């Protein structure tokens, strides 16, 4: 499979009144055609900003970005505004967290989809509308030809997210960036949307970047996972590896702090403290003030993302020795192990 997106050492800094916020500080990953990459992290970890930077949607005034984001070999960070507009909505589409606010309340949803078609396809309005209705049908909106004339407030949250997906996929992009697309939805609706995204990916071969705070969602749909903490990548691995052999103390903490449906857990693991301010992040490893395994080097030196000695696809940024890591990973997994029936 060809590489679709290659992000190298991406950095995005925002200038604010209080100083410079390093919202993304050295992030690298690759995504192959038709695959799904999950980016997990807590709020403020930089996962959304990473994707907005790739799309060129950060505020020009306050944000500066460095590094490279190669989309089919073309560096999006160097692309002109004109070129970015051609790519957005056509080759790369995006859907957002809150379907309630992501659609313009004063335009009919059909028109909002048509707008996206006419920006990139040289077709008549009538043809664009036909395609819009087809897209609505595809995402499971009943009576799509009539519902196209409705306004967003006439749809439920789940239906609006379907509309957003229809709008994103109408030009058959090769990459869909989904920023917490199910966070605002109820669990049964979330299942519907995830299923829909999955089947559309199967049908159209769209690659997906799924940003989420929910490790469960990642486990269900991602091929590869990036775990972000305080603007940097803690760990990056194929999904199976990440959950079977996590190598970073933050990942252990995250996995251990999850309450679980399928296991009787006596007491959750607690990561002490709160994530650091990105205005003045701690010296050395960003996680060191909260890390139970911290030693001197962690406070002085910033760990780079390197491959694990046993697996070149499994990258992590932690100075702990490999033996300790393996032992602690096993201990973490054992704390919520369930007998698989």
């Amino acid at each position, binding site marked *: 499979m060809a590489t679709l997106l290659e992000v190298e050492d991406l950095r995005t800094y925002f200038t604010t009144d209080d100083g410079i916020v390093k919202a993304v500080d050295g992030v690298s990953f690759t995504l192959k055609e038709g695959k799904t990459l999950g980016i997990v992290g807590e*709020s403020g970890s930089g996962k959304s900003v990473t994707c907005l930077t790739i799309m060129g949607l950060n505020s020009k005034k306050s944000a500066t970005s460095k590094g490279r984001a190669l989309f089919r070999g073309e560096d999006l960070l160097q692309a002109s505004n004109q070129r970015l507009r051609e790519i957005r909505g056509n080759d790369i589409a995006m859907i957002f967290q809150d379907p309630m606010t992501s659609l313009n309340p004063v335009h009919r949803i059909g028109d909002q989809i048509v707008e996206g078609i006419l920006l990139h396809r040289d077709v008549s309005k009538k043809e664009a509308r036909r395609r819009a209705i087809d897209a609505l049908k595809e995402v499971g909106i009943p009576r799509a030809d009539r519902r196209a004339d409705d306004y967003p407030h006439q749809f*439920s949250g789940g239906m609006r997210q379907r509309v957003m997906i229809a709008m994103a996929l109408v030009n058959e992009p090769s990459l869909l960036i989904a920023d917490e697309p199910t966070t605002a939805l109820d669990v049964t609706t979330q*299942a519907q949307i995830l299923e829909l995204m999955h089947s559309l990916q199967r049908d159209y071969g769209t690659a997906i970047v799924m940003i989420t705070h929910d490790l469960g969602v990642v486990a269900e749909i991602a091929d590869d996972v990036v775990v972000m903490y305080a603007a940097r990548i803690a760990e990056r691995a194929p999904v199976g590896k990440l*959950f079977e052999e996590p190598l970073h103390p933050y990942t252990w903490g*995250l996995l251990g*702090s999850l*309450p679980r449906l399928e296991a009787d857990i006596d007491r959750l693991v*607690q990561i002490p403290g*709160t994530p650091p301010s990105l205005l003045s992040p701690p010296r050395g490893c960003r996680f060191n003030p909260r890390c139970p395994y911290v030693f001197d080097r962690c406070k002085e030196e910033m760990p780079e993302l390197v491959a694990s000695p046993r697996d070149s696809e499994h990258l992590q940024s932690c100075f702990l020795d490999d033996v300790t890591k393996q032992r602690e990973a096993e201990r973490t997994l054992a704390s919520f192990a369930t007998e698989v029936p």
Partner: protein
Amino acid sequence: MVDELLRVENLTKHFPVSRGIVFQKQVAAVKAVDDISFTVNRGETLGVVGESGCGKSTMARCIMRLLDLTSGTLTFEGQNISRLSRNEMRPIRREMMMIFQDPYASLNPRKRVGFIVGEALVVHNTGTDAAIKRRVQELLEVVGLNPEHYNRFPHEFSGGQRQRIGIARALAVNPKLIVCDEPVSALDVSVQAQILNLLKDLQKEFGLTYIFIAHDLNVVRYISDRVMVMYLGKIAEVAGSAELYARPKHPYTGALLSAVPIPDPRLGRARKPIVLEGDVPNPINPPDGCRFHPRCPRFQEGVCDASIPEAVDVGTDHTASCFFPLGHWPMTLEEMQRVDNPTPAS
């Protein structure tokens, strides 16, 4: 011998929908909570799960008597409190406290933490200023905050710390029952674990009873002794936590459980989720019969849409309001759709 703290019988809360040019007359009602009954035992945590619009928050506000009941009876420690006046409620208010979802909105930004936590103590006249201050500092320490932060304002704290302030405030008057309305859903995973553990520790230390309302089934499983599943103003199923998650009997519970993404690719990808069709219907005109029947894979015409299912015993301390409870678990959608005996069990 189970010691009953709260008994809820036939609790109903309808919000009138009015129309009219000059004189508004009621034309319909949002049936937010409709004829539900359950009990809460001393020292236990009753988890309440359901999706938005299922009435779980309205139910909590009715129990707290923040909303007037349309009908039904609340019995707290043997005393009927459902019709008590504001004055008569006052001594009972200090026995039941509430923790809210949004740690940002539920604390007055212009008051200092000491005042916020101690307010209930002042209202209930529990001692001198110095004694109150001592108590507040003790409380801050109990919930894991620095007692010296007594004079700070809420905005100086992070989300998790604010939720700790909310907990300290609830604990101040030594309540017997704490109703937690989505207390961790605005928090990040790592902070959520801290708060959940804190709530568990406090329960052990002070013998508290919780009603814990959440939409996250994982969280409810972890914190609860018993779990109640609500759908559209009705109780679908009640059972002990482990029992409910291992052997759900109501098809809605089954669908909910199978919809939760499991943070383990081996387990998660092995199962096939039961994806429900459509959205939760409007509570103004809820469906006849079983409220779940339009979306239910086990729907049987002439039964499910004809009468409202009663709660029936389906196991030890396990009741489900369904005519065709599930026989085993886990199951696939096809298995769920198969009903062997299409006449109701009861």
